[in-house]
């Protein structure tokens, strides 16, 4: 995300309870200064309070300072806690650390899960071997379209592809609401002010097909979902003749913008009827569960933006058939290396990171550290997330990192199913697992 780093504010404190008022005061004042409303600032402050209290309770005697940074993301404010891995018991960063979800009395020890409830997103990731980054994100409040506002477009015989202006982004939102059923519209299109702000900071990008008099014929949006993977939305095409090449043009405009960047793969999980599926490769199907209990299949399409010169992947024998089948189907040149524990000593406790997106009722788990309790840890996380009412529980296994293969048996045993193999979406290819089944 592009940000004006000059506006970032920093606080460095020791992980001691005595500093808690300082931390909460810092986060609250910074959030307000960086543009959050009072209610949202309070939510972020509560989240930071939970996180810092948690850190204080799990800090070791040698714990170093905690670096806290508040920054504006345009449409949101983020608070990041940067921690040295050797200063904390990493096990405490499991959402389930020291928690028995059956026991209400233990809820005050659910630091990270409590933090996740008051913010829009929480993410724990490894910055480098020595550092963890725990990020809380709270978005500004934007009005949403409650009722579709009608807008009309006309067929265009000539048009250029270019990034839309903020006003045009708003109009695209209206057009999309007029020409597409709700299930084709990603949430961001229902909140145009938020979308304009996200585009302004570079979190999303767009290309529109614009006629000679400024008429909008269509648009496509995209954003990064990882260091090397981009997800696109659309193409949204408004009242254009069926033979129009505008949909292909919009997709090609997106690809041309991504060419010669760090992006290696382009994914579409929400293709519109005009999406040129023949120019992509079908990855598989995920199920998206909505808050109201309904579900929607998400057909994932993909294309590499570079020539695939091959790589090695580490695969547990229980996942071998899936990976081999997918590599064969997608014609991926892979040296598939079997990997599983053959008696070597593992650390006692594994660690999973969780990325929460409460707006999507989604949690994505990733292995952060191997451990002999991987199986049990997965089960505990799945149970806790179900209890939290999270409907979309996914697990990302990076086949480029050998030790992660050890999580495979636990995932399969506890109901996770491999859905997609996403080339080069991590250190190597990743397999995306989903916990299917009943909604709570």
């Amino acid at each position, binding site marked *: 995300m592009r940000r004006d780093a000059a506006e970032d504010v920093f606080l460095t404190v020791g992980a001691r309870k005595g500093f808690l008022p300082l931390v909460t005061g810092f986060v609250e004042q910074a959030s307000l200064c960086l543009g959050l409303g009072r209610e949202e600032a309070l939510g972020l402050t509560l989240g930071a309070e939970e996180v810092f209290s948690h850190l204080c309770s799990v800090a070791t005697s040698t714990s170093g300072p905690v670096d806290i940074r508040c920054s504006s993301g345009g449409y949101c404010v983020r608070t990041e806690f940067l921690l040295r891995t050797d200063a904390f018991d990493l096990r405490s960063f499991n959402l389930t650390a020291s928690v028995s979800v059956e026991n209400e009395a233990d809820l005050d020890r659910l630091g990270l899960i409590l933090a996740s409830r008051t913010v829009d997103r929480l993410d724990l990731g490894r910055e480098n071997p020595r550092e963890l980054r725990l990020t809380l994100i709270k978005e500004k409040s934007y009005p949403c379209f409650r009722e579709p506002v009608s807008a009309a477009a006309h067929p265009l015989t000539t048009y250029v592809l270019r990034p839309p202006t903020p006003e045009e982004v708003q109009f695209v939102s209206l057009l999309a609401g007029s020409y597409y059923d709700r299930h084709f519209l990603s949430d961001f299109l229902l909140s145009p002010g938020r979308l304009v702000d996200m585009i302004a900071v570079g979190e999303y990008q767009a290309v529109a097909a614009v006629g000679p008099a400024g008429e909008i014929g269509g648009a496509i949006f995209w954003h990064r979902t990882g260091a090397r993977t981009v997800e696109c939305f659309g193409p949204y095409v408004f009242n254009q003749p069926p033979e129009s090449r505008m949909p292909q043009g919009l997709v090609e405009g997106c690809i*041309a913008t991504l060419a010669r960047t760090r992006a290696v793969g382009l994914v579409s999980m929400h293709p519109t009827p005009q999406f040129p599926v023949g120019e992509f490769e*079908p990855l598989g199907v995920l199920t998206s569960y909505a808050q109201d209990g309904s579900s929607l299949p998400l057909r994932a399409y993909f294309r590499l933006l570079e*020539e695939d010169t091959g790589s090695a992947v580490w695969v547990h024998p229980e996942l071998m058939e899936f990976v081999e089948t997918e590599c064969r189907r997608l*014609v991926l040149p892979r040296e598939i290396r079997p990997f599983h524990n053959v008696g070597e000593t593992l650390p006692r406790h594994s660690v999973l990171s969780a990325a929460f997106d409460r707006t999507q009722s989604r949690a994505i788990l990733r292995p952060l550290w191997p451990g002999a309790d991987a199986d049990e840890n997965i089960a505990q996380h799945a149970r806790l997330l179900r209890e939290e009412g999270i409907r979309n529980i996914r697990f990302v296994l990076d086949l480029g990192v050998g030790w992660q293969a050890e999580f495979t048996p636990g995932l399969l045993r506890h109901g996770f199913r491999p859905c997609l193999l996403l080339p080069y979406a991590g250190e190597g290819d990743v397999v995306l697992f989903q916990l299917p089944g009943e909604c709570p």
Partner: protein
Amino acid sequence: MDGFSPDILVPEHIKAFSAYIPSKPDDVLKQLYGCTRIHRLNNNENALGPPGTACAAIMGFPAVQGSVYPSGDAYHLRGKLAQRFGMHPDQFLAGNGANEVIGFVIKAFCREGDNIITADKTFAVYEWVAEFSGIEARLTPLVDHGFDVSGMLERIDPRTKILFVCNPNNPTGTWWNRETLCGFLDRVGGSALVVVDEAYREFVEDPDFPDGLALVPRYPNLVVFRTFSKMYGLAGLRIGYLAGSREVVDIIRRTCIVYSVNSLAQVAALAALDDEEHVERTLEMVRRGRSFLHRELNGLGLPVISGEGNFLMVRLPMSDSLAYRKLMTRGVMVRAMTGFRFPNWIRVTISQMEAMEAFVEALSSILAEPAQEQGRP
């Protein structure tokens, strides 16, 4: 050392840049893709190899010379080029392939805040070298697959230092004739350097194709790039050169890496210039291959962009990166063109008939696959 984080030392423009990952060696690719041989149609190499004169020079190169530094400024080669083109040796500068001389020119003339101008769909290295040097690359969309004179001129501002024109353009094969190039140089005036990259000029047979070197006396701000990698088949030895006015080349020389061109490359290049028959044999191979590909690709109903140079482009009804992988499993390596901002296009080097036939056969079999296997659900 504990606590060292290289990130704090890295300039923003480098953080944003992604390293170019070259293709793996053929033996590794064969293993990964499960093929027994590879027809290399991805890098526009000359399938005939170096000229006979250069082969003889390579074979005769005394191994013991490997312990001796090369001529630091390709002394004899510059002398021969000067003689051949009626110029002074100091008007030439050799590099470790033409890629290296791109870096020399940008380093010599650009500083932070400056910009260069080129096309959006052309050889990527002008743009890359500029960007990882912290210099803005202003990209002009092609018009009818060719460099756009007015589009480039419109982008000039007081901080524009260099305009890069690839003539003929890689990958479209379009080219400016003498009138267009001179008109462009006239309109640029002396406000900026104009680099004309003539990497594929030896493949052009049209008499209206301009000889950049002949224009240097008239345009002292003109710099011409040429290479021994394409027509002369010395890509593996990495040798190319630039030429311009003595004043301009003297400035560029200040930023060049001396001794970067090895002795074997210098000896081979020197000998290659003498072999006129090699050029004719190569042109004949390209004519024959192009004609064959036109006929076959037309038969498959595929759009083709075919200009000058030993390559052409084909539009596929599928992702070019998927086509690349499928062709690789059949032992044919082409260039996927998404990186050139031509999604769903591939570029094919025009080569000997065996390779051309293998390519057409492989492509035909891919296109004949059921839709599901082509990537359709």
